[in-house]
């Protein structure tokens, strides 16, 4: 069988060729550049480049100081000032305002009822508040997108929950829009009441999961007058408020200060989802109507009598964070059993990371729209800071040293008060600051556009893209444009307002990205020929051996 021997002899040749092929294998997908590095290229964008407007300037008429239904509210020079009708309704209660004001809010007629001047000092003492639970950027079976959309920063739409005043009407801007109505937003509204008020807060659970209300630091009895649950903790009180059900909590706080409220069901998840808000008890004064809802927190357009005695302005600064993995659990399924599984069992809080950081429901650059501190020289500004992230924050206001007047709603003895420039807040802590704008080299270094931000640097980025997070500005009126935007360099905000920048796709400083190398065709073709030879030879051997048998 001479033929068979020939074929056997060819086998080592094939093996050699295979070894050669392995050795000479070209770098198919990446290789070293050699002397010259590849040319730069423009980035590949997953979505068309879109640059958001810094300020939409939708309601310039809302900025002026004005009186609505007898409520004389302060000027608010922000790009997005609070709706004066909401402010009037929040001060007077829905039962004491005109139909025109009521129709200019999106609140239900029983969202806030104020009545009964029990102590005869000129203000109502029985306050009835109704809260709902809303979802922003959640899943919808009718579209691959989320609904209703709420951008915390350009193009960034994490799933968020919030308490809101009981609402009325549409949840979106109009029938053709997916954008959440302005009142549907983060954070949960700041609730403000007067010391000694009898407050009845009803949670109307409009959501698909059970929730409760827990009042953190606000004076309340363990049980209601009728023996019902009043602390909101399912393991010590009643079962949570089930979807479609309601429960009323009763408070009559004897102590004033900056406090919190939050859901106490699956607290780790539900709190981080956004079911938390600031709760401010104002000192008792005669004829003291307080702004019971500060929607979106921030500037308080109608401060209480006690605050007006000492301060020129007041701001509620609510710091929150979002874990994108938790946030997406409400975006990936429309089946509440699946959402519950993903959120409450698959998601693991002990492996949690915070990715987005918000001040008053927005991340930079959208904090510029409604979370500025606006000031004039020689003022005393009341800042109420609350941290409902699970990490610590260390807030720093450039160019200023403010005085800490209250810790967790308890006043510090004036002689022991500390003036400093970093204010650290652990989870759930509150600080009240007196920010003085006296240009004395200590309290203030003068007028300017001064950044204020968390100095824990994770907090100043949007999922790692900086500048972002809870960065905001303290702007003196002399450096504020008529539309509420600070006077900054014309191109200063171009990058941060671009969706591709936030998407991590746009190189910084308008540079290019490293490009690609051209394929090495000679190498590729020679190697291809070699592989062809191997295949041909193998076929030849196999066929030959088969024939020889």
């Amino acid at each position, binding site marked *: 069988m001479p033929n068979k021997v020939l074929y056997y002899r060819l086998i080592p040749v094939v093996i050699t060729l295979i070894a050669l092929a392995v050795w000479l294998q070209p770098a198919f997908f990446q290789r070293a*550049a050699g002397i010259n590095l590849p040319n730069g290229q423009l980035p590949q964008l997953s979505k068309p480049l879109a640059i958001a407007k810094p300020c939409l300037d939708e309601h310039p008429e809302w900025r002026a100081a004005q009186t609505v239904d007898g409520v004389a509210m302060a000027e608010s020079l922000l790009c997005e000032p609070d709706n004066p009708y909401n402010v009037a309704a929040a001060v007077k209660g829905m039962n004491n305002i005109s139909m025109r004001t009521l129709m200019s809010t999106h609140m239900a007629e029983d969202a806030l009822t104020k009545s009964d001047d029990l102590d005869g000092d000129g203000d109502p003492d029985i306050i009835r508040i109704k809260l709902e639970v809303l979802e922003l950027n959640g899943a919808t079976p009718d579209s691959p997108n989320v609904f209703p959309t709420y951008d915390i920063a350009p193009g960034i739409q994490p799933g968020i929950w919030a308490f809101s005043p009981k609402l009325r009407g549409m949840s979106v801007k109009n029938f053709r829009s997916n954008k959440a109505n302005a009142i549907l937003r983060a954070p949960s509204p700041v609730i403000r009441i007067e010391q000694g008020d009898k407050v009845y807060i009803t949670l109307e659970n409009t959501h698909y999961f059970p929730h409760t209300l827990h009042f953190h630091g606000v004076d309340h009895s363990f049980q209601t007058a009728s023996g019902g649950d009043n602390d909101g903790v399912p393991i010590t009180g009643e079962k949570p408020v089930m979807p479609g059900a309601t429960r009323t909590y009763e408070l009559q706080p004897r102590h004033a200060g900056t406090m919190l409220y939050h859901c106490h069901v699956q607290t780790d998840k539900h709190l981080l989802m956004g079911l938390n808000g600031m709760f401010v008890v104002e000192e008792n004064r005669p004829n003291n109507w307080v702004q019971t809802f500060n929607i979106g927190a921030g500037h308080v357009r109608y401060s209480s009598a006690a605050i007006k005695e000492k301060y020129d302005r007041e701001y509620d600064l609510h710091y929150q964070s979002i874990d994108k993995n938790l946030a997406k659990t409400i975006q990936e399924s429309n089946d509440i059993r699946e959402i519950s599984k993903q959120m409450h069992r698959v998601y693991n809080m002990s492996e949690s990371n915070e990715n987005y950081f918000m001040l008053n429901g927005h991340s930079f650059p959208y904090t510029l729209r409604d979370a500025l501190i606006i000031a004039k020289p020689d003022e005393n500004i009341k800042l109420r800071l609350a941290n409902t992230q699970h990490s610590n924050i260390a807030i720093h206001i450039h160019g200023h040293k403010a005085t800490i007047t209250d810790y967790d709603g308890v006043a510090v003895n004036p002689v022991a008060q500390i003036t400093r420039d970093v204010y650290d807040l652990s989870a759930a802590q509150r600080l009240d600051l007196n920010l003085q704008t006296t240009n004395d080299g200590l309290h203030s270094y003068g007028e300017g556009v001064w950044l204020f931000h968390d100095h824990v640097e994770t907090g100043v980025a949007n999922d790692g893209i900086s500048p972002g997070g809870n960065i905001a500005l303290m702007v003196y009126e002399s450096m504020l444009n008529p539309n509420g935007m600070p006077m900054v360099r014309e191109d200063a905000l171009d990058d941060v307002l671009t969706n591709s920048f936030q998407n991590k796709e746009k190189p910084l400083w308008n540079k290019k990205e*490293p490009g690609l*190398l051209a*394929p090495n*065709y000679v190498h590729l073709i020679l190697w*291809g020929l070699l*592989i*062809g*030879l191997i295949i*041909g030879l193998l076929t030849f051997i196999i066929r030959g051996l088969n024939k020889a048998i």
Partner: protein
Amino acid sequence: MKYLLLLLSLLSSTATFSAMNHGGMIMDEKGMIMNHTPDKLPKDCKEISEDVDITIRGGHKFAKDFNGKMFTYDKREWQVPGCARVNVTFINEDDIRHQFMLHGLPGYMYPKGMFTIEVYGKGQKTGSFIVPSRDYTYYIHCEVSTHTEKGMKAQLKVGKGSGDLDSILGLTAPLTPDYYPVNNDRFTWLSLAFSILIGALLISWLSNMLARKIKKSSN
């Protein structure tokens, strides 16, 4: 013993003094030249073979022709004969500090084997050094933090030199290269498939030839 110690310490301090002065640093508010040596010959040179004047510019703008780099010199290779006196004019075109730092000169006349011109901002300085006779490639760079790594590296060949240094822009590849993705398209894969086919057909053609030959010879 005391005297000996005193003598030793005196000697050593004199040595330090002379080292600082020797080849010295010429400094002003614009910059510094270290080991300026226009007239002292290396041991192996009997005379200066040639006076070579070279002007070297350094700055950010020269790196613009090189992808992914930040600073470099306008030229990154020079060649001079052995025993040449090299008169370097180093022009810094940036507002920051740059250096022309050359290594490998004989230590007995150039402390640390270096010749350096440093210019603190926009401006220029001129200094000289005399190279020994042997063929050697001298390493030139700017040692301001990151400048060497991001492009500011060059070489001076004396005579034939002793090979090339790594990672000189436009001249030699880096020793630890970056890897880049290859821009493959449909044509890339088609040409690969086609060449494999040709290879296989080649064997098939060869085997047919062989079969024909065997047939012929058996006939």
